[in-house]
C-alpha cells in the first residue's frame, strides 16, 4: 500500500529539519524532492505498508494506495490520528463508507474523534 503524496497538500514540512514522513519511515523510503520541496517515496515497491508516514503527516497529504496487481481501483483508507485513538475511514471501490475508531493509547476513555 505504497504512499502517494498529493502535491497540493504537501508543504515539505517547512521548518522541520526533515519532513515527518522521512523521519519516521522504517525503510528510509520517504525523502524530500529538493526541486519542488515536497515529499516523495523514493521506491514505492520497497514499502511495507506500515502507514507511519500517512499517520504522521500533519497535512494529510499522503494517500496510501494498494498495488493494482492485487486490488481494484479506486478504494481508499484514511487514518485520522487523535491523542488516544485513530479514526479510520474505509471507502471501498463502490463508494461505500465505513468508519472505525480504534484505541491507541490507554487513558481518556471518552475521547471521540
Amino acid at each position: 500500500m505504497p504512499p502517494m503524496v498529493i502535491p497540493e497538500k504537501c508543504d515539505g514540512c517547512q521548518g522541520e529539519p526533515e519532513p515527518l514522513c522521512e523521519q519516521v519511515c522504517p525503510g528510509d523510503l520517504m525523502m524530500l524532492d529538493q526541486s519542488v520541496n515536497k515529499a516523495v517515496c523514493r521506491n514505492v515497491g520497497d514499502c511495507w505498508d506500515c502507514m507511519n508516514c500517512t499517520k504522521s503527516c500533519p497535512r494529510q497529504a499522503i494517500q496510501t494506495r494498494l498495488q493494482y496487481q492485487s486490488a481494484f481501483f479506486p478504494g481508499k483508507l484514511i487514518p485520522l490520528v487523535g491523542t488516544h485513538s485513530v479514526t479510520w475511514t474505509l471507502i471501498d471501490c463502490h463508494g461505500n463508507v465505513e468508519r472505525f475508531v480504534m484505541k491507541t493509547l490507554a487513558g481518556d476513555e471518552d475521547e471521540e474523534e
Partner: protein
Amino acid sequence: MVRERVYIDADLLIIGGGTAGCLAAWEARQRGGEDLKIVILEKAFIRNSGCLSAGMNALNMYINQGTPEDYVSYTRYDMCGAPIREDIILSVAEVVNETVALLEAEGLPIKKKPNGRYLNRGKWNVEINGSLLKPITASMAIQAGAEIYNRVYVTELMNIDGKVAGCVGFGVRDGKFYIARGKAVLLAAGGCAGLWRPRGHDDAHHRIWYFPFNAGGAYAMCKRVGVKMVGFDHRLVPVRTKDTYSPTGTLAIGMGAPMINALGEAFMHERPEYVKLGGHTAPTPTRAWALCQETLNHRGPIMMDTRRGDPERVAGLKGQYLDMSPALVLYWGCNDINPSMDPIEIDAADPSLVGSHAGLSGAWTIGTSRMTTLERLFVSGDALGAAPSRFISGTWACGRLAARSMLYYIERVDPQYLEINPDDLDRLEAHTFEPLDRYQKCTFYTNGKPIEGVTPEEMEWRMQYIMEEYCGGRSHWFHVSESYLTLARKLINRMRHDQLKYLVTKDLHDLQLAWDVINRLDVCHLVIEHIDYRKETRYPGYVNRTDYPNVDNENFDCFITSVWDPETDEFHFEKEPYVQIVPGDRNKESI
C-alpha cells in the same frame, strides 16, 4: 581516514532499538543505576522502526493459565517435539506476565473481560490495541535515559582475540563512520526476510509477512566474527492471507475459523492423515505442510472459513486488522470481500529466518546468560537462536533478562574498553563505504546504469532467484535435496566470492541496500549448509528434504551448530545435545 568519524563508548552498547533492545535499556537503568552509560544504535527512527512498525493486535506469549512449564511444553510440541532451548524459554516464561504489566502501565491498551482480566485469545495470547506498540516500546528506552543514535546502520562487529569490542557502521543521514565500543555488547537486531522470492512482484515485492528491512544483519555479523550459530536448518514458512500476507492468528485462534479446501472440508479436522498429526492444533509447521499437501493434491484454493467462526468476533475483524495490517482491510474493500460472509483465502508465503517467532535461527548462547561463544557479546530477540515462540511479549522479557546478565558480567569481570588497532579501523571504514566509493569511479550507460558495476537490487533479485529455485522456495513447495543444494551452494558462493566486488551504490540509502545484500548472502550461506547438514525431515512444511523424507532421531535429535572459518570459508559443525527440563511427552501439550 577519509570520512568524519564518531567515536562512542558505552557501558552497555545495544545494537538495534527494537523489542528486546528497548526493554534491555529499561532494565539496565532500573538495576544498573543512574551512572550507567547505555547507548542504542538504531538503523531507522526508534519510535517507528522494525517489525512492530505497523502495530500488532495481540501478544502471543502470556501465561493465561497453567505455569511457565506448561508454556515450555506447548512450545516444544509446536516445534514438532523438536529440540528447543527449554532453559531459555522457561526463563522468559517466568517473567513475561510482569513484563506485559510494565507495558500496560506505559500506556499499551490491553483488552479486558467483564471481570477485569485480560481478554485471552486461546491459551497463550492476549488481545491488545497495539497500533502504537512500537512508540510505547521505544518510550521505555527513552525514559530510561538511553543515548539513542537514530539512522546508524551497523556493518560489522569487532572481535579482538575472542572478545567483542564493539561495532562499526555508517550514518544513513550524515554519512559519518561510527565506531562504538562497549563493556558489554547486546546484539538485538531483527531476523531475516527476503532470502526467497516474494509472491508479489515489482511494486508489490515487499508485500510480505515479515518486515522486509530486517535483512539478517544480526546473523551475518555474528557469522563473520566467528560466533557459534544454531537453527539455520529450520525456517519459518508462514501461512498468511493471500496477496497481503497478513497474520492469520486473528482468524484461526481469535475466531476459530478452520482451514477449508475446495471440497469444503475442514481438512485438519476431517482428513485422517492430518487428524493423526494433531488436527487443527497440530504443530505450526505441520499445518503449513497440510496446506501445501491440499494444494498439491489439487484441492485448492485453501480458505479460512470465517463463516464457521464466532459471529461476534468476526464482526470486529476489520478493526482488529486495522491495528496490525491495515493493508488487508483496504484489500477487502477493493476486492469486494466481506470477511464475515466470505471465506478468506490463505497461502504459504516466502520463508523467513527468525529466532523469536516460530523459528530457531540465531546465535548459540551459554546457559541462560544470553552470552554468545564470543565474550562480551550478548544476544536477544531474533538474534538469539533455538528458543522459539517468545514473540513480542517474550522478547520484551528476554531483553530484560539479557540486561541483567550483562550487568552481572560487568560487575563480575570489570571489563575495560578494548583498544582497536587504527589500521583495522581504516580497513573497516574502507570496507563499509566500498560500494559508494566504487560508484564514484563508474561511467554510465545512456539509461543511467553503471557500466562497471551491479546494483544492490540486481544482486538481490539474483540471490532470491537462486534460493527460490535451488533452496526450496514456495514455487518448489519448500522441497530441497542434495542435488538442488549443490546448485544453490555453487551459485550463492559465486556471488559471495567474486561478485560483491562489483556492487555499487549511488547514495547512502543504497549503501543500506548494499549491506542488506551482503548480509543476506551470508545468511544464505548459513541456510544452505545447515539444511544440507540436517539429513532428515524434522519440520515438514518448513524444510522438506526429498532425499531424507523421515525423522532420524538416532542422528539428529539435537541442535546443529556451526562456526564459520574465514580461512577455508567452511563451517565447523557440531551437534549439541537437547536437554529436556520440563518432563512429559515431547509430542503432547501438557494443558
